[in-house]
């Protein structure tokens, strides 16, 4: 199984969820994060003082999927999260050794 971590623009969440649902990805966990990358934030002025906003608000999505679904999931995210503008985000794929559903104790792919 794979554990996919995607950092996306907040306003893209619904599209991404929709795309993943299409693949039958049954669940996900979403976290608010602040991102830093090529998109270097921007300058603001507060009470006459200019300052740099380094971090940009992003959403981090975590999805555990069966290995064979991983590529499809990644593509679905890329497709739905892209705006073409800098700061669209990144997807990271990690190996997932085990998954357990707390309610039933099911493990492995059944737990997803």
């Amino acid at each position, binding site marked *: 199984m794979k554990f996919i971590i995607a950092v996306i623009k907040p306003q893209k969440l619904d599209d991404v969820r929709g795309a993943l649902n299409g693949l039958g990805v049954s669940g996900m966990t979403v976290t608010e994060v*602040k991102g830093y990358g090529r998109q270097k934030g921007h300058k*603001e*002025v*507060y*009470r*006459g*003082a*200019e*300052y740099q906003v380094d971090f940009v608000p992003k959403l981090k999505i975590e999805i555990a999927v069966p290995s064979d679904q991983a590529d499809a999931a990644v593509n679905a995210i890329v497709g739905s999260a892209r705006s073409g503008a800098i700061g669209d985000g990144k997807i990271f794929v990690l190996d997932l050794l085990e998954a357990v559903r707390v309610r039933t104790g099911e493990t492995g792919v059944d737990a997803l």
Partner: protein
Amino acid sequence: MRCKAALGPMSEFNRRKGDGGGFSRAPVAAAACGKGEAMKSKKTIWLAAGLAAALFAGTAGAQEPTAEIEAATQTSAYVFNTLLFLVSGMVVMFMAAGFCMLEAGLVRAKNAATICLKNVAVYSVAGLMVWLLGYNLIYGIEEGGFLGPFKVWGVDEAGSLENGYSASSDWYFQMVFVATAASIVSGALAERIKLWSFLIFVAILTGVIYPIQASWEWGAGWLDAQFGFADFAGSTLVHSTGGWAALAGALVLGPRLGKYEGGRVHPMPGSNLPMAALGTFILWLGWFGFNGGSQLALGTIEDAQSVAKIFINTNMAACAGVVTAMALTQIIYKKVDLTVVLNGAIGGLVSITAEPLMPMIWQAVLIGSFGGVIVTLAVPVLDRLKIDDVVGAIPAHLFCGIWGTIIVPWSNNASTAGEGAPTLGGQLVGILAIGAFVFAISLLVWLALKYTLGIRVAPEHEQLGLDKVELGLEAYPEFSKG
């Protein structure tokens, strides 16, 4: 009007003097008009009251002599005057909530509970100190004097009939003014000062420093007697005084950690701007009582007209301050800065406070508008000087206070108010004398505190936030901080 203004400093004196206002105005006025033989017997005073009312009324607008208008009865005038103090005092008291909200909104969340505590404490300490020391220091002073008696105040309505209002109502009204001055300090020094050291300073400020300088003018001390200094509701006596004390504190205390790190300014955005906006509206509301109540009398048609005109000028100056700050921040920074606009409202209000009665509306608008300019330009200047004023109290209260006091003679001068009217010279003397006194003493007190109890929390505590360190709680414990 002429008649009254002819009193020049004398009328000023009446404006705030404990035994001023109300009935006593009538004889004074009559006297002034009648080339000054004092009237002592109460009887004549009563007569004069009616007469003066008639005269005043007669001067309002262009109409045939209205001496026939019946004056309020003595009791009615007394109740009107007292009611003005009580109702005005209530909204001025509420300004404590305004400062609390403004400051809580402009500090970072980790210090919001502490600034609220300070605001509640400041108002409470001020009330107690004005009772224990302040009031008699201000109004117990002999005419032309430098220092009043150190004496606890007690309710005493003797002489209140001559004054034409309840002595208690006057005490209440004067007390809330002192609290206002102290509230100015808490905002400027927020986020880094030790709670108890701050409160000790506040006790000294409200019990001694403010009262002494106020006695010079509103107590009819030397400044009032010799220089005809005019400060209707306290641009200098209240707002600049608070501002000077804050400036001295800011210098001794130093900026917040990291504020000017690496020679650059690192803004620390306010954590709850809607709360700051609420605070500004509350202050604006309170200012009607602050300036309107400073007419000190409501028992005659002329006084009623004056209070109403003061409401208008006060409001227009604030409106102008807001619009000016909006336009300026838009032009300079390409974006309107809400926090500066809120300061702009206060800057406009402070600017008109020294003379809210005499200006015509367009003058009030210009006076307030320039207050907005001052605030907008001064905020970044202070940063350049590495003076860290968390809420912009120094530009709004000190600088605009000075501006408002200087501009008094524009509308209140010999040509509009006859000889004896305030002069630029007299105004400058007052500004300098009070500024020097308040700043110097405050500096000494801050330094004394610094080298004894210490005034600044430890750096790691400052990083953690005063709420956790001094109160052991959080203002918003459930909202995760970004």
